[in-house]
């Protein structure tokens, strides 16, 4: 009985950990930008979506190119995927930096509400541009399905078989986060970042090039969002212009949950949200297996898998607004 229950739960938990890792990579971008600029970068989720689209288009463009160069169809595809990954990383970072320069930098001394509105405007622009370019259709992701070798291979853990990317994601996430934490704690630019997030004006007086620090923050955030997007969309079949909005919002909730401004907090929050959400998706199934729900009764928990994140947000904001690892911030009169 317990063994059966465990084997019912396991796939949900595993995919939860994987989704959590992807949310974590997006959440870091939110939490770092918020830590420094006190801005919810609403466009971050859309940057994530654009990274997915870049992958789609660059792969479509590059595969025939490599085939013309004399490679066989299979190897041309692999080479084009690998070079597309590089293109995705570079272009996404450029996009992130451009948005910061064009839409946020001119408003540096404006009220915070204006910057937030600008972020919403950028998100609106990116989504509309994506609808125009894709024609509003879902674009199949090249790396998903059987086409992507190795990453999409099925492997078996216990009695469940899952894609390899599900196992790779959390490992890769944790490696990247450790590297990031080391960067923040040990390097000079990391020290500058910490200083700017503590006090914007004083750090400028101390000779820190604040604009450079902000650019680096956006660089890191967009880079991690691109990595997250590669992993996320490998699990899903296609990219649509709005497919960045929900993961973006959830990652933001994860950042708030962990204590906004704190990188480890965002990661922990993201894993918790990812796991809870996926368990909720399978809760009807799990409870039926456990014998709580009888005679085919279902509650329809899956409808609430998105809403759950926001319920969690409202609860955490009311109980502990600073999140799990956030610093306490008092308002001075």
């Amino acid at each position: 009985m317990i063994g059966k229950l465990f084997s019912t739960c396991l796939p949900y938990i595993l995919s939860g950990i994987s989704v959590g890792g992807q949310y974590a990579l997006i959440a870091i971008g939110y939490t770092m930008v918020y830590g420094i600029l006190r801005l919810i970068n609403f466009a971050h989720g859309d940057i994530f979506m654009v990274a997915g689209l870049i992958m789609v288009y660059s792969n479509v463009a590059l595969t025939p190119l490599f085939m013309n160069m004399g490679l066989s169809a299979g190897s041309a595809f692999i080479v084009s995927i690998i070079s597309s990954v590089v293109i995705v990383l570079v272009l996404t970072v450029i996009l992130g930096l451009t948005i910061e320069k064009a839409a946020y930098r001119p408003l540096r001394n404006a009220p915070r509400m204006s910057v937030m509105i600008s972020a919403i405007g950028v998100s609106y622009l990116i989504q509309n541009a994506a609808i125009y370019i894709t024609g509003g259709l879902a674009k199949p992701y090249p790396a998903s399905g059987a086409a992507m070798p190795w990453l999409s291979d099925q492997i078996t853990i216990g009695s469940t078989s899952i894609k390899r990317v599900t196992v790779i994601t959390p490992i890769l996430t944790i490696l990247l986060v450790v590297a990031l934490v080391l960067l923040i704690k040990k390097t000079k630019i990391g020290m500058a970042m910490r200083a700017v997030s503590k006090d914007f004006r004083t750090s400028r007086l101390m000779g820190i090039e604040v604009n450079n620090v902000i650019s680096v923050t956006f660089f890191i955030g967009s880079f991690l969002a691109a990595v997250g997007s590669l992993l996320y969309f490998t699990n899903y079949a296609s990219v649509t212009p709005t497919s960045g909005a929900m993961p973006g919002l959830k990652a933001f909730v994860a950042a708030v949950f962990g204590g906004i401004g704190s990188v480890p907090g965002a990661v922990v929050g993201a894993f918790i949200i990812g796991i809870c959400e996926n368990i909720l998706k399978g809760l009807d199934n799990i409870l039926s297996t456990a014998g709580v729900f009888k005679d085919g009764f279902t509650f329809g928990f899956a409808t609430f898998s998105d809403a759950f994140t926001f319920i969690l947000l409202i609860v955490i904001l009311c109980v502990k607004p600073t999140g799990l690892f956030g610093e306490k911030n008092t308002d001075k009169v």
Partner: protein
Amino acid sequence: MKKSRTDMIFNLSLVALIFAAVIIVENIPGVNPMLSTVLKKGSIYALVAVSMNLLNGFTGLFSLGQAGFMLLGAYTYAVITIPDSAREKVYMYVKEGSAVSRAWFDNISNALHMSEDVSKLLIMIIGMLAGGLIAAFFSWLIGLPVLKLKRDYLAIATLGFAEIIRAIFQWDKLGPVTNGSNVLRNFPTFKTAVFPLTVSALCILFIVLLINSTYGRAFKAIRDDEIAAEAMGINLAHHKRLAFVISSFFAGIGGALLAMFQNTLQATPFKSAMTYEILLIVVIGGIGSISGSIIASFLYISASEWWLRGLDSGKFLFIESPAVLRGGFRMVVFSVIIMIIVLFFRKGIMGEKEISVTRFLKLFKKKDEKNKEI
């Protein structure tokens, strides 16, 4: 005092003039049907934008829950007003059938021998009010914990609340009431633009009166400096809740009107994108200006539904290029315009000012005086 009276008379006569124009335009056959759409949708958006402005512009509460409250209003309206004869067909995908009936109303209307038109109008008004009240009730409920939060946290919490509402309305266990994720239809709707214009004009008038009252001054004080306002004896929690509930009430009525405009109702379009759209209208009009919001709504709807249509269909002004001007290009151009406004004309069309004939006249007077000096 005298000045404001002149302004008020001027504004009221302006509204009366617009109404007369609308009635005439609607009754002339062969007028561009787009104009009627713009008038209907524009007046609905004007109401919702003004209600959002009451929160964001006048009370300084950055809330992004508007779509959620509109959804509440729209669904309440539709569920209450669908005639019983049509219910079986509308709820055909729900096993249990509809759990709500409007027999109580039909009985009253039969007992009083109301004509069909009167009875339809009455149920529409009852439905709208109920929609507003339900939205207001939920906003009061969510306001208890959420209104304590500061700016960005409030924004994200209200945005989350709207998503929760949307999920609940699509839940199949609530099917007998909300029809799950299926379409609601056959509820009474309006034919001419006079109805939505009248309703939103009345609602906006109420909001204007509220803003010019003691409450309105308290709201503005909270917006300008919360701590100072509290020190002056303004009850922060009470006033914030009041603004939030009233704004949601009108958002609910706006939602009901939107349901009537669309003829059918589903929860999916009430996403955060809708809230963003309304927020951008408020920004274009000027945060803190009622007349700005109204002008911006009509401009926004005319541009997106009518003037820029050509950008989608391959022919705009004198340019003809089906390759570039295809589906979606309109919205790209549109969002670029919005970004330009957000970045370079942060005050929007009106800033914090209102349309005022006295100020307009003063402008000329000053010029005259200057000319005399020279």
